[in-house]
């Protein structure tokens, strides 16, 4: 519980810093997601109250942008680049293989909470296409048969 309290205290400090800036809502939500890892309903309500805006505004922004998560994420976030350069070089096959190996479709987290699989927009490493990122690690010039070995390194 006190851990949770600390998080709210950290959020309040960020809000105090930002609240007088014009258009503070998104920067505040970005900080909140950094602190909590995602944006649960309680946190959204807290932000609405602190900034004195309707909770529906916060929810509206949270659901509009791909970056905001309403659910907790896995320990490892796998981002499969679906930019055009990666797509023409076979990123769909890499994604298919990941779905098969992890047993969850893109956009979901494995039941053990270990992996979240995402198909993302261009990561900008087109020279390495097709590319995936697992947290901060980048794997480039991939073929589907390399997928099981990469995943097993994180188990």
């Amino acid at each position, binding site marked *: 519980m006190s851990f949770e309290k600390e998080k709210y205290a950290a959020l309040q400090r960020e809000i105090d810093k930002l609240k007088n800036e014009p258009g503070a809502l998104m920067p505040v939500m970005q900080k909140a997601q950094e602190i909590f890892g995602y944006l649960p309903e309680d946190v959204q309500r807290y932000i609405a109250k602190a900034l004195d805006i309707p909770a529906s505004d916060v929810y*509206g922004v949270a659901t509009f942008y791909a970056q905001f998560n309403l659910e907790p994420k896995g320990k490892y976030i796998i981002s499969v680049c679906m930019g055009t*350069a990666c797509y023409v070089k076979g990123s769909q096959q890499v994604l298919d293989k990941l779905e098969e190996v992890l047993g969850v479709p893109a956009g979901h987290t494995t039941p053990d909470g270990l992996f979240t699989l995402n198909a993302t927009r*261009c990561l900008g490493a087109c020279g390495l296409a097709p590319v995936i990122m697992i947290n901060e690690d980048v794997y*480039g010039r991939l073929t589907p048969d390399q997928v099981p070995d990469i995943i097993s390194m994180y188990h």
Partner: protein
Amino acid sequence: MDLIRSHVMVCCGTGCSSSNSAAIIEEFEKQLAAKGLDKEVRVVHTGCFGLCQAGPVVIIYPEGAFYAHMKPENVERIVEEHLVKGRVVKEFLYKEAVEEDNRIKSLENVEFYKKQKRIALRNCGVIDPENIEEYIAFDGYKALGKVLTEMKPEEVIDLVTRSGLRGRGGAGFLTGMKWKFAAASVSDKKYVCCNADEGDPGAFMDRSVLEGDPHVVIEAMAIAAYAIGADQGYIYCRAEYPIAVKRLEIAIRQAREYGLLGEDIFGTGFNFDLEVRLGAGAFVCGEETALMTSIEGHRGEPRPRPPFPAVKGLFGKPTILNNVETYANIPQIINNGWEWFAAMGTEKSKGTKVFALGGKVNNIGLVEVPMGTTLREIVYDIGGGCPNGKKFKAAQTGGPSGGCIPASHLDVKIDYDNLTAIGSMMGSGGMIVMDEDNCMVDIARFFLDFTVDESCGKCAPCRIGTRRMLEILERIVEGKGEDGDIEKLENLAKTIKATAMCGLGQSAPNPVLSTLKYFRHEYEAHIYEKRCPAGHCKKLLTYKINATKCRGCTMCARNCPAGCISGKVREPHVIDTTKCLKCGVCMEKCKFDAITRS
């Protein structure tokens, strides 16, 4: 100050960082210290050199030795041979950079760089982007000084207008005109914004400028602010670009420390300050009104124009928005004069354009060429053509708003108007090369899938229309296309283009229209013959075992997940095509090349 005799430039752009250039820097520093050379050889973290294909890249000056695909374990030898004994290690050099007689070729003579002209990318790979003094040493902030102390705002606008510079982010509107409109608006507050929300899949020009030369954007925005009478700026940057954001923040801090941002800049009484705002992953926020709505802290939905942002923009005040590459040209136009800039390019498109060349091409990377360069020169001379001897099929430009250019238009001189005339557009500069293995119907589906996902939902033509188009395309690639589908697609496309509210919706049908124009036969083959000519669409493939080649090893049958391959040991096997999942495992496993796909 120590005398530096040699500079080791290590690319720290996203591409090279992803293949671990940080470990290379660490190793260089360790080895140089061990040899006692750390006072005379400097390791510089630079921005992108452009040739991402060869990454991680290291260039050592004064020789200009271009080391490609560097590995930390090669560093020791380079230090020992090159930096201690002065002997370039040829086996590690980029192969194109070595002459037949074994001499080093200068970079300007390497095929990839020969036809390029670097203006927007001038400092990328040349300076340390985290050190303002290096930028200043390369004429940085000279243009701002000149503007503030010698020129009137209207003179600045006039100069930018005469240069013919057009927006590098999409529509190609004259930059000077935009500034003029905003300058003419009367208001107590005005804003200058920079669009760094580079959302086109496969485009990374702006990111490379921000990573390699962040001060150029700051300087140009200050110039723009002076020209229109603004004192506050925002850079709206993709959150997916952590390196760019970090370097921008460092650059802004340094500029403030040096008095180049803040109050009373150059003692002229001119005030200007800047803030970075992070996007949150919405493609529509690249549209100018949506971007401003997002900075204001709302859902990034566009609003109707007029009123144009030059009259009523961010927080309801007059605002100009230019993209990163546009700004990157400004200081040099001021320093070198509009005549210098207008002398490059074609009649209506001046200067250079940066393209992110990617896909099925040998030299993947960032390319800056004068407007009017042909597609053939970019794909073949600079890009080195398609790998593995495959045939070029099309180049896609303009991202989800653009189109596919077929081989018959390879000799078109690339500029804004010519690209529009052949059904594509300049866009922000992504250029994805496709070869004979890419199915153009599937590429159209891929882009529609993108726009459907990214449509903000505010207007019906885009929200509903693009989804209907996607559904038709999905049917076609699955072999369920029907007579009349092509006409339906064309009708929908026409309606959406005419009625959608913002640029995203209006241009969303372009990938379909351009592929229909040049690759209609591929659509027809999918619909009427249930066949994918490129052999890409899984549902339309059939796998067959060639009985004369099959040895009956049973490998395919044992690996088939559907259990649809039968046959006796040492006798030819057969695939039951009604049960086949078309996964291709049999073909991968066959050691005798007996399985074909058609």
